[in-house]
């Protein structure tokens, strides 16, 4: 364990941060600055800034005790509470834009430290389907993932990873990363240029395809990685994710998920868009979850550690 981890609470004992800590959030201590990712209400009568898809009705984020009808309270990895992201309404087919309410997203808004060269986002997460019907909801989730919204002096860019669990009911269990898109702004925003430039908000923009890919994703070459779903919807297991980014080269450095270290192709990087106004230096990690059918799904986040290096 590196020196920075020694000062952290015991709930971060399994983490492997870089030298400097930017934020350490254990949701037993409240929402910790995480909240719903919502659009900009800058239009007439506070209308949302973009209507190409419905950004206003994603499922609300909440503090959860992971309580189930038959198991009772599951709790979190190191206490009672986790951050819960959930879906509200049924998903569209995989080759369609996300349907209203078919995702849940949570964001925290930070800023890039002076001299930061590398960034690591780590979390303990568990995913399951809402136990609203008999059976096993192992294929109810389309995906979950994490990304980070960054803007430096030259570019806005959103590196991230997405675990595609199932596509229109068929199991997939493979990881993607957000890759440089060849789409133009019109194609990226589903046929009408808007606020979203190509590559921005890849969790919901970029044309989608029947195999679960999008104009903004690339598959890892590794074999499928089944995560722990367990044997019923009310048994959840906490698994670690760790995404490391090179902030100077704007490249991926590494990604660890559960029991595997995944390999990025040489030079793998997300889309580098032109900068937006008034957000220079922002550093906003985002988690999301997405339904595959009509059964609601849940992503629990026990804790999140954002660390960085100036070396």
């Amino acid at each position, binding site marked *: 364990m590196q020196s920075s981890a020694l000062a952290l609470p015991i709930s971060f004992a399994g983490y492997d941060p870089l030298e400097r800590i930017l934020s350490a959030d254990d949701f037993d201590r*409240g*929402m910790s600055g995480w909240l*719903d990712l*919502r659009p900009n209400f800058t239009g007439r009568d506070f209308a949302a800034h973009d209507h190409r898809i419905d950004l*206003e*009705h994603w*499922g*609300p*984020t*909440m*503090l*959860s*005790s992971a*309580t*189930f*009808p038959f198991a009772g309270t599951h709790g979190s990895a190191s206490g*009672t*509470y986790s951050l*819960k992201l959930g879906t*509200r309404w049924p998903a569209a087919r995989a080759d369609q834009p996300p349907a209203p309410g078919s995702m849940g997203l949570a964001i925290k808004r930070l800023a890039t430290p002076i001299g930061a060269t590398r960034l690591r986002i780590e979390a303990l997460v568990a995913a399951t389907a*809402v*136990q*609203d019907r008999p059976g096993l909801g192992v294929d109810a989730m389309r995906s979950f993932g994490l990304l980070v919204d960054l803007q430096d002096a030259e570019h806005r860019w959103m590196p991230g990873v997405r675990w595609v669990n199932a596509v229109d009911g068929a199991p997939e269990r493979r990881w993607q990363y957000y890759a440089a898109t060849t789409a133009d702004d019109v194609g990226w925003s589903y046929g009408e240029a808007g606020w979203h430039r190509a590559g921005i908000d890849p969790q919901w923009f970029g044309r989608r395809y029947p195999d679960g890919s999008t104009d903004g994703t690339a598959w890892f070459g590794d074999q499928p990685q089944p995560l722990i779903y367990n044997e019923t919807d009310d048994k959840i297991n906490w698994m670690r994710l760790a995404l490391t980014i090179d902030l100077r080269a704007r490249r991926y450095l590494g990604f660890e998920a559960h029991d595997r270290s995944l390999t990025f192709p040489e030079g793998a990087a997300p889309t580098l868009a032109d900068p937006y106004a008034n957000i220079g230096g922002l550093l906003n990690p985002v988690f999301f979850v997405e339904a595959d059918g009509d059964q609601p799904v849940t992503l629990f986040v026990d804790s999140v550690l954002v660390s960085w290096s100036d070396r």
Partner: protein
Amino acid sequence: MRQFHAAIVEFRRGFDGAIATHPYESGWADEAVFFVELEELSVGSTVRLAVQLSPDGLRWVDEGTVLELDQPDHVMARLTNFGGFLRLAGEVTGTAHRCTMTVRLALKG
């Protein structure tokens, strides 16, 4: 210092007939206030909302508090001694039986 969180449980959501707001986990909180902003309601229609509690977000029991509105308005319901999950359930009835509302939940504990 106690925790506080204001959740936007429903945002400018249209309802047609039956109403049920998204189940919101509130087990950490000691007190809650539902703020209901009824933004649109067709003339001659009425909205009735009952506060409901749930142990699991799936099975609901009436708490006893009922809100009734016959025109756009902003009303609230104060709650204590609730279980893990909270929602509002009811219906919009009348000539067009359609409404649009934003529901916020202020939690403290």
